Structures are given as C-alpha cells and as structure tokens.
C-alpha cells in the first residue's frame, strides 16, 4: 500500500478554448490516432493537390454540364438562351436517343457477360496448369502488359472491310460483313473487339483470385465433393465473389465509357445508322453537332444513370458477396 492521497475531485471538463486549441493542433480524444502530424492543418495541405485535381477536372465540369444543360447555345458561341428542361425532354423524347440507350444497355450486358465469362473460364483453366509455376504466370501477365494499347488497333484491322481476316471468314460462310455500314455487322465487330480487349484484365484478376483460395480449402472440398463442377460452384466461386463483384463494376464502367476509342475508329466518318453508346452520342451531338445544351443534358442523364447503377450494385450485390 502506498499512502498517495486520492484526488478529491474527478477530472474536470476541458474548457472550450482548450478543445479549440486541441483541435487546431490535431489533438484528438484518442492519442493513438494522432499519427505523426503535429498540426491539424498539415494533412489538409497534403490532400490539397488531389482535391484540386478532383475539383478542377470533375466537379467543375460536372457543374458546367448541369448548367449548360438548361440552355440552348448559339451554334457560333455568341450567346445562350435559358430553356429549362427542354433539352432533357428533347433527349428523352427522341427515338434516336432511346435506341442508343437500348443499344448501350444491350452492349453493356453482352460485353460484360462475355468478358467476365471468358476471362473466368481461361483463368480456371490456366490455374489448373500453373498452380505454383511462377514463370507461366509471369509469361501470361506480360502478355497482358503488352496487349491493351495494341489490342484495339489489331481488332480493327481484323474487321477491315477489304483485308480483315474476319471479313473473309464471314465471306467464307456466305455473309458479306460490312462493318461500319450494316448495323448488326458493326455491333458484332464492336462486341468482339471490346470483349477481346477486356479479357486479359479479367483473366488476371480472376487468376489471382483463384490462386488466393487456400490450397487446403480446395483439398478439403476435393474430399467432400466428387464433382468438379460442384466444388467450383459451392467453394471456389463464392470465394471468388469479391473479385467478381469488383470486376463487374470495372467491366460495366469499361463498356459504358472506355469503349469510346473503339467505337470512334469503327463508326467515324461512316454513314449514319451505326450503333453507338450513350457516351459516344454525347460526343457526337456536342462536338460534331454543336448542340452543347442537348449533349450536356445527355451527359447529366448518363451521370444519374451511372450513379444509380453504382448504388444499386453496392446495395444489392455487395451484401451477397463474401469477404473472407
């Protein structure tokens, strides 16, 4: 026993000034969380460049798009007239816009499904062969590292109207492939190239997802279930779900936005009535058609759709995804 007298009063509440000073100097209730910054404003200073980039290249243009979607701009840039929701009504009422929207949805579903499906299939097959064999893996990954920028161009050459091997292949079966002229021929070309370009990406994520399933868990499944399909369905696939969910979002984003250059090369300067995605239409109407107001309205609609889609995915899909 020591005879240190106990303090008669409990700890007093810190004064407002104290708290303010603590806040300013970055002092929090939990000293462990203070990390190494001595100053409350220092972290903000570090984040500033990133924030600036986001504001300048994202929020500001978004705000601009929203504003200009309520105006009709003079084609020569001499002035603009406020028209309220007219641009939106025009877009949503236009048959052309709706058919583009349907095509985008169709394109999105087909490309995502095929790119994910084929990527997963290849990954499962490769995983069987290369479990542990680092050199194989490196080899396959290096292919991916080279491929993407070249892939688009090569794909377009394959479908070339005069010398593309795919054109010849279709000709062999008696179908004259007229990419850039015929709606469905162009669709086939767009889907093929888009899927092809995205497969390596999905492949690598699926492969690394597969390889991170513990060997002993697979072995336990090997003892519990005879059928390889059941093991895949009941054990491997659920453990791959986080990867698949991530890829689903990436792939949808890819088909909606990053297929732009592919579409551009294939339908540019071609006669009308070609399939295109909403993003390409925004570009076409805004920059080719000089309809800034209408194109802004379209991009705002697109923004809303994508935001809604993302919320949906996270609300309904993520809950069913198992994070080990």
């Amino acid at each position, binding site marked *: 026993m020591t005879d240190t007298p106990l303090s008669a009063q409990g700890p007093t509440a810190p004064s407002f000034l104290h708290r303010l000073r603590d806040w300013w100097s970055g002092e929090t209730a939990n000293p462990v969380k203070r990390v190494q910054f001595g100053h409350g404003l220092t972290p903000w200073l570090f984040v500033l460049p990133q924030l600036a980039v986001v504001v300048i290249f994202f929020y500001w243009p978004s705000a601009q798009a929203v504003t200009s979607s309520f105006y009709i701009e003079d084609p020569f840039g001499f002035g603009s007239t406020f028209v309220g929701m007219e641009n939106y009504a025009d877009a949503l009422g236009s048959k052309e816009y709706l058919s583009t929207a349907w095509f985008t949805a169709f394109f999105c579903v087909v490309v995502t499904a095929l790119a994910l499906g084929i990527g997963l299939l290849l990954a499962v097959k490769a995983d069987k062969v290369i479990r542990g064999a680092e050199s194989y893996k490196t080899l396959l990954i290096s292919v991916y590292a080279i491929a993407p920028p070249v892939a688009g161009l090569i794909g377009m050459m394959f479908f070339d109207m005069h010398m593309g091997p795919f054109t010849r292949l279709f000709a062999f079966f008696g179908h004259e492939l007229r990419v850039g002229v015929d709606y469905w021929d162009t669709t086939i070309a767009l889907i093929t190239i888009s899927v092809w370009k995205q497969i390596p990406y999905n492949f690598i994520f699926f492969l690394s997802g597969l390889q991170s399933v513990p060997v*002993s868990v697979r*072995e336990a499944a*090997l*003892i*519990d*279930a*005879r059928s390889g399909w059941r093991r895949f369905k009941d*054990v491997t696939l659920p453990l791959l779900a986080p990867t698949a969910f991530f890829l689903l979002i990436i792939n949808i984003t890819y088909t909606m936005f990053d297929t732009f250059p592919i579409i551009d090369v294939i339908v540019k300067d071609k006669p009308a009535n070609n399939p295109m995605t909403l993003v390409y239409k925004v570009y076409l109407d805004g920059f080719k058609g000089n309809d800034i107001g209408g194109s802004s309205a379209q991009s705002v609609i697109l923004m809303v759709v994508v935001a809604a889609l993302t919320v949906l995915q996270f609300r309904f899909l993520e809950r069913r995804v*198992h994070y080990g």
Partner: protein
Amino acid sequence: MAELTLNAVGKTYSGGVKAVSGVDIQISDGEFIVLVGPSGCGKSTLLRMVAGLETVTDGEIHIGSRLVNQLDPAERDIAMVFQNYALYPHMTVRDNMAYGLKNRRTPKAEIETRVAEAARMLELGQYLDRKPRALSGGQRQRVAMGRAIVRQPAAFLFDEPLSNLDAKLRVSMRMEIRKLQQRLGTTSLYVTHDQLEAMTLADRLVVLNGGRVEQIGAPLEVYRKPASTFVAAFIGSPAMSLLDATVEGGRLMLEGHVLAEVDHKAGPVTLGLRAEDLRLVARGGVPMRVEYIEELGAHRVVHGMVGDQSLAVVDQGAEAPGDLIHIAADPARLHLFDAATGQRIDVRSRVGEFAR
C-alpha cells in the same frame, strides 16, 4: 470402419525427389496409428497419398478391401483434418459439417441428426450458425473434427491438427481426440512431429526417417527398445544421450570406465543412455562434470560432460554447475547401437552395476 493396408508404398515427386519409399504398414480396424518423424521425412506425403491428394507412384494402398490407388479422394471414404483446419470460410459451421454429406446424397433428416450429434460431442451447439472467422482457433479445430466425424468414414486422417494451438489447448485437445476416437472406434492415421503427442495418442507409432519406416511399434516398445540411434534420439524427452563407447574383451568401456560386461565382439559401439534411467551415486560410477541445469519443477535435468561427451541425467538433488557428480545406471536399461549403421544391438549385459 476398416483396415488400412500400405504395401511397399513409395512416392517420387516430379523432379525426382524421393519423398517416401517402401512403406509397409498393416493397420487393423479401429487402430490409432501415429506417423512421427522430423520435418521433411515424408509424413504428410504418406498421409496425403492415403487421402488421394497425392498420386501413389509405387506400391498399393487398400482401404478395407478396396484398392484405392486410382480413386478420387471423395471416393475413398476417408475424412481429413488439416493443420490449418481448411474450413470453408463462406459457410456456417453447420454447412461446413453438412457439405460432405449433402454431396453424398445423405437424406436431410439424417444430416441434421449427425450434425447435431457431432455438435453435442464437440460442444459446438451454440456456434452452428457462425462463420469460421468468428470462432477461436480451438473452436475452428473442433469444427474441423466435426466435419470429419459426421461423415462416419472408414478412416480419419489427421495432418498435425493441433500444431496451430497454444500449448495448453493442445494438451486438452489431444485428450479429446483420443477419447473421441476410442468412442467412435474409427481407424485413424495421425501425423505429427511432436514425439510427446505421438507417444500419448498412439496405439502404435510409425517412426519415419527420410521417407523410410525406421520402426513400428507400441509407444512403450519404441521407447524401451528403439530400433536405431535415430529413433532413440527422436522418441523420449529429454532426448536419449548417445555416446561413443567401446567393447574390449567383453567389457563395455566409456571414457576409460568399465560400464558392464556384454556379449559382443570387440570394437566401437554407440551407447544410448536415457536421462531418467540414470541416477547419482555417492561413490564409484562414472564421473560427470555438471555444465547446466534445466529446472522443471517436478525434477531437474542435469546436463554435463563425461570426458568430452555430453550426457543428461534426471535428478532431484541440488548440484550446481561445475560440480563433479558420479552416475550409475541399471545395465538392463543400457542401449547399444552399431557404431557404423546405428542399428540396435541386442546383447545381454552380465554384470549388475556400473563401473566399480
């Protein structure tokens, strides 16, 4: 439940690594066999060959009357408990246990009964709806056991199932496993590198060395009559001291002291002495210089030097490092091994005491 027969079983990995060779083991129904040996001696490989997770490159494995060499793991009617438990992380405890049965088209009611029974035995009742990540190590271990039990297989295979647990839990789980196995009477093959675990669990031990069987026998038999210096050094704690000695004219000599009279041709031999078989004597005996002392509470292990060879003695006394003590042993408890091959030499020592 079934017998397990390994006939000249061998494994050569691609690349030419010979992990296991010429293993013959006859395991009778309900027997608990422990495969023990140092790291890399091929224990897991052998077990995994029985499980079907590794191909058998030589010999034959029979489970019951069936030759299983070519069968899938799921067809072999075995259940395995893995070192890291290998539970399905996305399934509840209940589903983890039921999964193997579901795939074998066991009726739903039957599955429920078996899972409930296993949960009761393993005291897992309140965790049935949890996922494995919400369980402690010991609980996960029990789930892994449960997954094996519900299957009611011909044989249990264990690959170091306790080595991820802390020391205390390991001891209690060891007892649990033994009791459970005796209750169920299921033939079991258990791999460990812990000789204490091996001694306490096994009906019979299989000591492996470099992919070969060094000795098969009941734990006490292996302890009392190790077949080679390898087994002698591996089984028992503290490890048996192995010393260079010679036989001269029918007398066993250690560092110039006569130990016993033996029926063996003259020449060098390896002498094995267990610390617990030695005792201190006031006079006579072999002089030993105390080097350091392991205090274990119940007794102490005194390590020291006889000449320039080290030796350990179990004792209750109060000697200190630097002391010179004299030790003696019952000649019946001396172990002699061939100095060249390390194989046991069975000789009768004729005189009743250490050197005089």
